[in-house]
């Protein structure tokens, strides 16, 4: 069972505002991810982290930034929100197990962001 939390669940803000989407997991997973999903569309990876102080950009270009100062926390920040940033943002985490073929990613409930 996954214990991964995202806040806020819904956010409506005006253009130009700075926002931070929070993601926390209590499972001690080393890897964390941020995906972006538009209605009826695929999830696209925008950021990932293999551990503390490790962050990389994903496949989909994003103006957001992330940080990983603590294992359990992986916040995403938009310095100046625009209407094009309106989307659902999903956080996930996984654990690298010795000998495992691949990791299973567990997702949080998501943050639906609307920028007016």
């Amino acid at each position, binding site marked *: 069972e996954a214990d991964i939390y995202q806040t806020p669940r819904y956010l409506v803000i005006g253009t130009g505002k700075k926002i931070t989407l929070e993601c926390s997991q209590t499972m001690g997973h080393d890897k964390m991810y941020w995906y972006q999903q538009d209605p009826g569309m*695929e*999830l696209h990876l925008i950021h990932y982290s293999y551990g503390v102080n490790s962050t990389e950009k994903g*496949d989909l270009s994003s103006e957001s930034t992330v940080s990983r100062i603590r294992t359990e926390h992986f916040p995403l920040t938009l310095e100046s929100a625009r209407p094009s940033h309106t989307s659902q943002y*999903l956080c*996930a985490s996984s654990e690298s197990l010795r000998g495992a073929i*691949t990791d299973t*990613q567990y*997702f949080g*409930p*998501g943050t639906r962001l609307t920028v007016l």
Partner: protein
Amino acid sequence: EDQVTQSPEALRLQEGESSSLNCSYTVSGLRGLFWYRQDPGKGPEFLFTLYSAGEEKEKERLKATLTKKESFLHITAPKPEDSATYLCAVSKDTGRRALTFGSGTRLQVQP
């Protein structure tokens, strides 16, 4: 280029009417194929991981199978609570191990 294609895009079934969802993939070095269920406004919920052709996994009314080119999610005697979007994703043989998702199949089961 890696591709994951799911069909149909949408499926409407009567309660008890069994059917299958398809996920075809073109990926070099497949490590694993995942099925997730996503309810509206929520994050994907993990269902299954399949690692090699011929593998099958079951959970309640769902059974997932895998070949070298595609995976099927069979739904036997579905109930209205099975209504959701079902997502397929693949993990590649790379160090990053992020997932590549299909666009999903929206399943509606009517009573």
